C-alpha cells in the first residue's frame, strides 16, 4: 500500500515537474543583475489570469487577441534597464539560450542592428509539428528583455499581442520585422 502511495506521489511530482519545465527558467544571475539595474519590470500572467482577461475581451477587434490568449498557458515578461553599458555579459544570457537549444526549439529570427547595437532573437517551440511556445530575447548595450509566450502560438500572433499584456509594443511577427527597413526595430522596449 505504502509503495503504491509513494508511486502516486512520485508520479504526481514528475508531472508537476515536467509542467514547470515548460516555463523558461530565469537564471539566478538575473536577480543579481536586477540589483544592478536601473529599472526592472517583471510581468507574470498565468493561464488562470489569461482566462480571466479573455472573459472581458468582447470589444470589436478583440477577437484575434482573445483567440490567442485563451489557448496560451502564460505570458512572462522580464525587462532590465541599466544605467551604463557593459553591466551584463553574454554569460548572463547563456543560461536562457541554453534552455532554447533543445530539439524542440528553433531560432526563427536573428536580427543584428549595428547602429543601435541591438540583437534580437525569436525562438519557437515545436511539439508534434505544432508551435507550443515562443521566446523573444532582445539585447541592447543597456537593456535586456525576455518575453516568453507559453502555449500554442504562431509567430504571426505576435502582431496581435504586441503592446498588450506587458509585451513591448515593438515586438512584431518575424515576417513584418523582416520587411521593415530597419529590422532591429522588430523588438524594442
Amino acid at each position: 500500500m505504502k509503495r503504491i502511495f509513494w508511486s502516486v506521489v512520485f508520479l504526481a511530482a514528475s508531472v508537476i515537474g515536467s509542467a514547470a519545465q515548460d516555463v523558461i527558467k530565469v537564471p539566478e544571475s538575473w536577480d543579481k543583475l536586477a540589483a544592478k539595474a536601473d529599472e526592472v519590470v517583471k510581468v507574470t500572467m498565468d493561464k488562470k489570469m489569461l482566462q480571466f482577461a479573455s472573459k472581458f475581451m468582447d470589444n470589436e477587434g478583440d477577437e484575434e487577441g482573445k483567440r490567442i490568449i485563451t489557448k496560451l498557458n502564460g505570458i512572462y515578461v522580464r525587462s532590465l534597464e541599466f544605467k551604463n553599458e557593459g553591466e551584463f555579459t553574454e554569460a548572463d544570457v547563456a543560461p536562457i539560450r541554453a534552455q532554447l537549444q533543445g530539439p524542440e526549439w528553433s531560432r526563427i529570427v536573428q536580427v543584428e542592428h549595428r547602429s543601435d547595437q541591438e540583437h534580437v532573437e525569436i525562438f519557437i517551440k515545436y511539439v508534434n509539428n505544432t508551435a507550443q511556445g515562443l521566446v523573444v530575447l532582445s539585447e541592447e548595450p543597456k537593456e535586456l528583455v525576455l518575453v516568453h509566450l507559453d502555449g500554442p502560438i504562431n509567430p504571426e500572433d505576435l502582431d496581435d499581442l504586441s503592446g498588450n499584456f506587458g509585451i513591448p509594443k515593438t515586438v512584431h511577427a518575424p515576417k513584418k520585422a523582416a520587411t521593415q527597413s530597419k529590422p532591429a526595430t522588430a523588438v524594442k522596449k
Partner: protein
Amino acid sequence: MKRAIWLTFVLTFACAAASAQTGIKTVVKLLETRYSVHHHGVPALWLAKPFMFGSGVGGLKIAEFENFRVPTEDAGKLQQQIGAALGPEWFPFVETWSRRDQEWSVIYARESGDKMQLLIVTSEEKDGLTVLQMNVSGKARQEWFNEPVDCAKRDNKNQQTAKNGE
C-alpha cells in the same frame, strides 16, 4: 454527525469569506510584524471616491507606513512572504524596481466576480511604504491587462496625489 458536517461547512465558508476580504489586512499585518512598524490610514480618502465614479476603480483602501522603506536586499524575501500570506487566490502580476527613483512595487491580482482586485505594495524613497487595494472593472480593468507596467507607474503617481490631497 450532521451537526459536525454543518459546522465544518460553516467554518469552511466563513474562512473563505474572511480570506476574500483580508488581502490588505494580511499584508499590513505581515509588514507590521516583520518590521515592527505601524500603519495609518489616509484620513480624507473618502473625498477622492466621488472622482472615481465611472472610472472603473472602486473599493479603494490604503494603508501607509510613513518614513519606512523596504530594504533593497529584503525585497525578494518579502515578496515571497507576501505571496505565501495572501494564498493561491492572489497571483503575482507585476513587479517593478527602479533604482533611479528608489522605488519598488509589487502587484498582486485576484479574480472577484466580474471585477479584478489589485493589491499594490509600493516602497518609495520619498513617501515610504504604501499598501493599496482596489477593485477594477470595465475600461480600467482592460487598461491594466493591456498596459500593466504603465498602469502601475500611473497608479503610483495617483496614489501620491491622493495622499497629499492635491
